[in-house]
């Protein structure tokens, strides 16, 4: 069957793998968007920009601090998370009580500022970021070669997603978060410092984006435009999955990455648009998304 389409199994597995990698990033980013939206009612248009900044911080740490990938994987999300918390405290907080659309407009403006600054400094070309030595090379699985770093990215983002899911659905802190998503003023009246939680949530959400950025750095190049390229797809993923469920956004992210990868094998012409086509179909069938609540 595969041979009749003149597609080798190698190609198929290769694209599946790329699909899973892209899916990892879609899942991490759309989950972060969903977490932020739940708490702040802001669709964080700057999410792609923070993803890009995460990759650049890793690049800076290596270039100017001599710090390796592993240090960057921890430090970059931390730094970007703090930056995000600062942005929330100083800017986003002022939107309280306004229509949700203003959050979108504001964070879109922030994304332009951040991306413009990086483009000024680094142009639009990419900076290479080396694969950490411990993860270079590949596993021979018999039917294909699996580059170690790619396997790491998939496992790592899957673990990060599940850890986030666990923290939100199964811990006390997560219960505060879910409760505050429903009724922030009551949670606050119970003695919880909700404004602090909101800041922390935004910081955490963009830290996830930065984490994805560091993971992406050795695969793609570190480019000022890398966030703007991915954000529209991530929005489509969020629309398809709906914003109501963390597990839903993880599942949707990985699945759409894989579908996109498969499309590259069987019908490459539409591989760029397949996610949007799926979105259109889902919207016809379920306007609030596969796992969504109406918003």
């Amino acid at each position, binding site marked *: 069957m595969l041979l009749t389409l003149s597609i080798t199994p190698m190609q198929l597995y290769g694209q599946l793998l790329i699909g899973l990698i892209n899916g990892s990033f879609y899942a991490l980013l759309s989950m972060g968007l969903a977490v932020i939206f739940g708490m702040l009612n802001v669709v964080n248009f700057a999410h792609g920009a923070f993803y890009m900044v995460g990759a650049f911080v890793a690049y800076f740490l290596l270039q100017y601090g001599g710090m390796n990938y592993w240090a960057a994987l921890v430090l970059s999300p931390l730094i970007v998370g703090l930056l995000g918390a600062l942005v929330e405290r100083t800017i986003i907080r002022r939107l309280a009580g306004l229509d949700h659309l203003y959050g979108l407009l504001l964070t879109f403006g922030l994304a332009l*500022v951040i991306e413009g600054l990086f483009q000024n400094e680094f142009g639009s070309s990419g900076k290479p970021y080396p694969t950490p030595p411990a993860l270079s090379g590949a596993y021979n699985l018999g039917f294909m070669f699996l580059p170690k770093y790619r396997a790491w990215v998939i496992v790592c983002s899957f673990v990060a997603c599940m850890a986030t899911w666990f923290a939100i659905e199964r811990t006390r802190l997560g219960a505060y978060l879910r409760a505050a998503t429903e009724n922030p003023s009551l949670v606050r009246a119970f003695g919880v410092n909700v404004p602090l939680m909101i800041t922390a949530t935004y910081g955490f959400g963009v830290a996830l984006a930065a984490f994805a950025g560091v993971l992406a750095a050795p695969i793609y190049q570190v480019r000022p435009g890398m966030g703007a390229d991915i954000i529209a797809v991530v929005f489509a993923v969020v629309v398809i999955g709906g914003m109501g469920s963390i597990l839903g956004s993880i599942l949707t992210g990985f699945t759409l990455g894989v579908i996109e990868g498969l499309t590259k094998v069987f019908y490459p012409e539409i591989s760029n648009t397949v996610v949007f086509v799926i979105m*259109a179909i889902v919207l016809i069938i379920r306007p609030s998304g596969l796992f969504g609540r109406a918003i």
Partner: protein
Amino acid sequence: MSALASAAPARASHDARDFALAGVLMIAAIVAAPFFVYPFFVMQMLCVALFACAFNLLIGYVGLLSFGHAMFFGMASYVSAHAAKEWGLDPEFAILCGVGVAAAMGLVSGALAIRSKGIYFAMITVALSQMVYFFCVQAPFTHGEDGIQSVPQGRVFGLVSLADSATLYVFVALVFLIGFFVVYRTINSPFGEILKAIRENEPRATSLGYRVMRYKLMAFVLSAALAGLAGATKALVVQNASLSDVGFQMSGEVVLMTLLGGMGTLYGPVVGAVVVVAMQNYLAQYGQWVTVMQGAVFVACVLLFRRGIVGEIAKWARLAL
């Protein structure tokens, strides 16, 4: 949508005199501008201003934020360029083709998007326009990165050549004024009143028996068609159509123009377009600082003056603009 609505000054009773006065000023400015500014620049400005007015019809009067309006502008610009160059159509028919395609796209994408509201609607329009963008990157007729170059301007009704820059200027000014008048008539018609009622309180409009979805869709298609009119005309002015007109940045810019000028004000988008295009022009030599400035203006508008320039002036001078 109520917060957005209240950011736009309530205008239950339109003060026709204010509108007319501002209209006379605007027409005077259009007539005078080519004597002071490079006419080519003014024509581009007029096209973009019409685009912003089309966009404002949705955000300002229906409360729908489209973050993908460049898909109509850009696609119409491709279609009219293609029709003029490859099919040799007269400019008015080339533009009509562009408008028709934009309206059809508006019908399809609107039908998909209008069932959702607020930020969901915005995200859907982002995604749909990205899809159109990728289509334009790949489709043969757009010539990808090269775009459609040296589009002939042709003769209106086979008679009046647009290659003459004064004639072209009059033509573009007329197209703009017609488009602007359509917007004005729309928002001051019973249809426009229903749109505003939907924006203020959709459940109530539904309970009054209005088929809200149908009205929203009609507004969406009209807005798409007018955006198409702007894009199709622009292709003839600059004699090319390129990916930048259909790209995401263009969608963002039209949002910025409208926000800066004043959402839900008739003249706001025009003022916003003039400011943004002028800013682009003067900052062009500083590379990406344009983007940074635009982002900063976005942030400033949202935090400091949500009524926009015209909205603030209207409030300050107690005018209906």
